[in-house]
């Protein structure tokens, strides 16, 4: 129960930090994406199923509050968490290179899909403009933020949640 509560709090706090603080430190209108980092971290530290659920609820919050079709962001973040869960077994605790690599790749994937699903289909075909002006800056900014924030997530999860996650564990089995 306590662990679940901590996960819920992590999702909520990350969400409102993303909507306030991250927007406050935006450079040139581009802010880093803390939610991608959260989903990637969850998948890496707690396995596929847990990453999947964290991603789903994070995305659902975004969908509900900002007028996307419910399910779009939920599905995107869910897959980020799920895919990073594949690296759960081969990941070392003190290694920060893999999380950074995954978060950067995940951010690119997320933005590329948003572009493909929501922008390209509306006839905005100038992909390279968006790549240069939105996707790449956000990737770089997220990369830097991962280096700073990942350890924090790591500490929260490992300090407050004394539980050894199995890959097959879903959130519902976390006590």
């Amino acid at each position, binding site marked *: 129960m306590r662990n679940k509560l901590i996960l819920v709090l992590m999702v*909520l*706090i990350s*969400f*409102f*930090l*993303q*909507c*306030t*603080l*991250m*927007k*406050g430190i935006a450079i*040139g*209108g*581009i*802010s880093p*994406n803390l*939610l991608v980092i959260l989903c990637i971290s969850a998948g890496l530290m707690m*396995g*596929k*199923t847990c990453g*999947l659920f964290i991603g*789903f609820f994070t995305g659902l*919050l*975004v969908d*509900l*509050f*900002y*007028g996307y*079709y*419910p*399910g*779009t962001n*939920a*599905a995107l973040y*869910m*897959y980020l968490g*799920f895919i990073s*869960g594949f690296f759960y077994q081969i990941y070392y605790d003190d290694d920060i290179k893999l999380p950074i690599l995954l978060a950067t790749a995940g951010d690119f994937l997320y*933005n590329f899909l*948003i*572009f493909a699903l*929501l*922008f390209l289909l*509306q006839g*905005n075909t*100038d992909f390279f*403009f*968006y790549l240069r*002006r*939105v996707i790449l800056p*956000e990737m770089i900014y997220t990369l830097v933020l991962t280096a700073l924030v990942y350890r924090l997530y790591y500490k929260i999860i490992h300090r407050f949640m004394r539980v050894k996650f199995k*890959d*097959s564990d*879903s959130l519902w*089995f976390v006590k």
Partner: protein
Amino acid sequence: MKKKRNIRMKSKHMIILMTILCISMAAGAFATGISGDSARTVVGYVIVPFEQGINTIGNWLLSVQDNFQNVKKLAEENATLKTQVEELTVQNNELTQNQKDLTRLRELYNLDQEYSQYPKIMAEVIAKDPGNWYHTFTIDKGRDDGVNVNSNVLAGAGLVGIVTEVGSNWAAVRSIIDDDSNVSAQISETEDPCIVTGNLELIDSGKVEFSQLQSPEGKVSIGDRVVTSHISDRFVKGLLIGYISEIKQDSNNLTYNGYLVPAADFQHLQKVLVITDLKENPREEDQNAQ
């Protein structure tokens, strides 16, 4: 302790199940137009106070900067005056528009019709869209304060956007520079209709596009005021959108397109005014009646 459940889903089954859930949610919302209103209200109660808190801290930090030379009083006074100036500017714009309309209507119909003064409430911007693709933001006033979906939002001198989602104590506003935004507009002087569209590709210049302007040649020029049109079904009439900065003829030689400089300052949005009156619209009344 509760007995462990026997059914243990594998993660790959789970992801397939959840994907289907996501798709059906999107399809359901698309088909019915309903999207988790109760969930939104509940989560709103949890998140909005935090956002307001963070916003208060941010504002406090800003004011600490301001108070560097112990001018707290002045800053406070300044804030109230600024609010007043914003309201007065909006009022003034309306009055200018009113005056022109009044003259025209008197001329045409020998009638004197007046705009109702739109009732407005002040709201604070407390959060923004988490991604970088859309220009949507959250304000700290909601259904309880009289804000509704399709309420128009103003700041400073001009139109900022329209409410797209509303909870009991918050509302999401899509700004006119958002890529999904379309506003039915008209040139203030000539009353020629056009469409004002946001475009993310103009992120650096901060402008918005207009298109499908039908106007006799030479009538419309750079610097002309563009306001919301009377044929719009969501925007109340006569709100200032911006000024024309660039105009070119379309290849069909009939219509014009170009760019506007928005009257509102989107870089420094802190306080906005929400018009609590909706544009009267029979279709909406039908929907409400159902």
